């Protein structure tokens, strides 16, 4: 063995290991931000093409802390007749017939959700638009998480808009 090749191999190994792990990390984050949903629902289609407003499905955003995810009945209101031959719609209909709620993968997960309180109602009434935080949803074929939901991101906007920065506002 040539002198110096053993340390080089080890360094190469460690380096490739780090690259490998960061690639894995990146793809895992992407997967979490853009998870594979049970039904391939396209916001682009429903918002841009069909013209639905955000509150049509996310009904409680102005009335309660949670935005609300549409019940299966809301989907079936149209899809009992519309595009019933498509495979995704067939999946939807099956969920409806078996009375099973669709197990959507949550995209916007607040870190440490148990300890944090976030009120959609307060932010909408404060004048924010959906797109300010959620990005341009109308051009997303697959919904993905746009901002990093870290406390720093929330606090920086609160500081600019003169919203309360008291810890008790959000920490429950």
């Amino acid at each position, binding site marked *: 063995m040539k002198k110096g090749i053993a340390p080089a191999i*080890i360094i190469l190994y460690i380096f490739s290991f780090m690259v490998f*792990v960061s690639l894995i990390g990146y793809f895992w984050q992407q997967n979490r931000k853009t998870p594979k949903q049970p039904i391939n629902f396209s916001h682009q289609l429903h918002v841009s093409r069909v013209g639905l407003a955000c509150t049509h499905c996310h009904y*409680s955003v102005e*009335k*309660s802390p949670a935005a609300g995810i549409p019940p*299966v*009945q809301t989907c079936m209101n149209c899809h009992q007749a519309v595009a019933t031959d498509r495979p995704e719609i067939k999946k939807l209909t099956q969920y409806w017939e078996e009375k099973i*709620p669709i197990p959507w993968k*949550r995209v916007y997960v607040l870190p440490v959700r148990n300890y944090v309180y976030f009120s959609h109602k307060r932010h909408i009434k404060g004048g924010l638009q959906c797109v300010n935080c959620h990005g341009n949803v109308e051009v997303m074929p697959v919904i993905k998480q746009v901002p990093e939901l870290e406390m720093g991101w929330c606090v920086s906007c609160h500081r600019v808009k003169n919203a309360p920065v008291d810890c008790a506002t959000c920490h429950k």
Partner: protein
Amino acid sequence: MDRRDFLKILGITSGTMMVSSCGVDKASEKIIPYVIPPDEDVYPGNPLFLNTTCTECPANCGMQVEINEKVYHDVRSLYPTKLEGIEGHPLNEGTLCMRGQAGLFRLYSPDRIQRTMMRHDQGNFRVATWKEALTRIEEGLNRAKQDGKKNAYFSGRTTGSLSELIDRFCRNKDIERLPEFEVFSYANIKRANEMVFRRPQIPKYHIEKADFLLTIGADIFETHISPVSHSWRFARARKNENFSWYHVEPNLSLTGVQATRRLSLRPRSEMVLLTFLLQTVLEQNERKNNPGITIVRSLPNYPLDEVSSLTGISETDLRSLATSFGNAKKPLVIAGGVSTAHQLGLEVAVLTSLLQWIMAMTDELVDFSQAESYESIGTFKDVESLNEQLDQNTMGVLFISRMDPVSMLPAVFKFSRQIKKAQLTVGLSDHMNDTVRECDVILPLSHSLESWGDSQPCRGLTNVIQPAIDPQYDTRSEGDILLQLLNNESTYKNFLFEKWNKNYGDAGTKEMLKTGYRSDPVPKVMVSFNTLAVSSFVRHMEKPNFNYGVVLCLSPSIRSYDGRSRDLKLMQEIPDPLSTISYGGWISISPLTAEYFRLKDRDEVELTAQEFSLKLPVKVQKHLSDNVVMVQRDLIPVPLTAVDHRSGEASWYVPNISLQKTGVVLPVPILSGSMEENHRGILPPDDDHGHRHDDEEHPRWYPEHEHKDYRWGMAIDLESCIGCNACTAACYVENNIPLVGLKEHLNGREMSWIRIQPYYDANDNFEFVPMMCQQCDNAPCEPVCPVYASYHNPEGLNVQVYNRCVGTRYCSNNCPYKVRRFNWFDHRLVEPLDKMYNPAISVRGRGIMEKCTFCIQRIRAAKDHAKDENRLVQDGEIIPACAQTCPTEAITFGNMKDTESRVYQLAQSERAYHALEELGTEPAVNYLGKRGNNHEA
């Protein structure tokens, strides 16, 4: 292998392991929608409220259920998460006792019976379907008919529509409906009222209208008839400066220690005291109802010294009692509890009714128009006759519903063996108890929060029971079961609605469902006095004999009522207010008895009576009489006691017991440190200028806090606090506080955020101090947190940020009030109890410090609501859980910057002080001490 190869292999394997773990698909969080949304405006995050009835004890207070939407085990649904009283309800005025607050522990109990069971031939239970069980019952009834056997229906107190339905069922199927069984049957009171007023009823006591109250044994705040009702009435009465209250009892009760004067009396001597009172007030007063006078004159005349020696009360006390009673414009006497549950209890009840009549209390204060619905409740005599019937082997089908005679009746009855003598026993219950275990068919009942129904706790009041959640298991309500046995196609809900619509009309029914109750006017009852019966009874009254040595008194318990609420896990976690013992049993003895036997707290003692013997740890209880020892009745197998055959009342005393020290010391969780206050500053300072030392300036390290719109503060009136622990229970449920269990209690690690601390004040009387985080302006816990998890917010609260806390515990170390609780372990509630977790607040994991937050989630919700309407929060909008449930309104919360608010006005009172004031912590909690010299000479 050489060193290098070894290191290479180590590196590669650890690297591979790390990489391989990355490939694991971490289940990402799901978000579950509804399939079909609920019909009203239900939004996740906004709670719904429903008015129904609490069925934890026979008082049947009106209860409001807070229902929250949350996802539990991948199902999004509505779950009741908090119970309150209904505002303005005639029984409880928006408050609830500690057992009521813990009602969810019954609803979500892991010990509930989940499906129907039947005993098969081998003797064990097997799961059955409803159809099989009901068929078996039908067959049993038919067989009984053929064999000529009798059937019986034995239930706990039932009122309202269910009672009607049971009547109908029994008539239809030829079943004898036995008198209902309640351990607290008030048999002597009913019999006395029957004799004196021709009304075998329990009247409603309007304590709030009285200016003098005399209670003889009646534990009005703990279990007597309707404790929450008595508590708020007492608080109203106390607002009158002239109100005074004498409580006379042979044992020591929570009620007794609240009275203006508590007099310890020799057991069985109450009738002597009453005779004395009857004769003295007759001399003093002009108001006399004639027929009674002759009777009183016929009573034996006891001179003062004889009364004193017979009752054990000093002459001075007797004189002052007689004077206060005589001077009162609206006196009220209530006898009950331990004083009417002995051989001479009927005498006590009759003399009390006589006194009520003579002093014209029956005009207004003792109200038979709104009498409590206890008519159909039987006595011990009825149980004895049931026993005889069973002995004769003539019982066919025996239905036992909503009660546990095997454990409530004396062990000697061997009721578990007796019920097997029936051909078929059907048990209806929600929990597996000793009785149900002996039955042949077990029908699981739905909890009252899962069913429809109504109840009539007293005349003129109808409470609605409506479901807040669908039955979680395969259970049914009793009404539905009976209708199915009657082969009736309709459901109990339809039965009820038909009846309500018929009686109250459509609009009336809707209104009733909205408010949760309905008050109908009742015709005023004018009682008449049965001179003949009373004079004949009085003539045959015997002088009491006191040859009973040391007597064991079985007392009722505020935590478990007659034992039924022991199923609720929370009731064991919260300590008994007088002894502060949480888990396990104990026997209370007086300090003199302890000295005589050389016993101290936690020593084990063997108690021997004629028929049984027990071993229990000792708790020394000051103010208890020397020849009385007390055990709460549900802590021991019920001993056999004498039954008074005139009324059927079973005695609560076991005479002639002996104690012997065994020498063992048991681990008993006595949670209070010391009950001696020693002028520490927790109780009001008893010097002349005893209020706040506003003139003293403490040096400040930090600049003053600025408060913009709100500064939250609290005022606690120690005069009103009765130590009932309803606030503690409410806080546990509202704030997801963990239940830690016996082992941690022995380590002193109970997690209650608010606790009732009992102390002996300067006059050696009990005082209860509710202690929670004082939200100090100058908090000692804030500067010492290394990670700034504990800080002072701009509204005056001391906020604890849970996920920032690293568990240093320096804050708890620095807190002089010791109100900070540390999560030493993860004490998540056992499934399915965790369904009751309040989603508005977190569930803390281990390593996190928590404490009272003045219900910041309620503050946040109210501010949110106010901001929607573009205004500030008004006084009274935010009510923390403890303040909301307090029956005596001892706790007031509000904005100290609002000078119109109630809390501000109370804080300016001259009775106001801060706990441990001299430390300079400047708490936001103002305590209002008991008014100066509260005790008459």
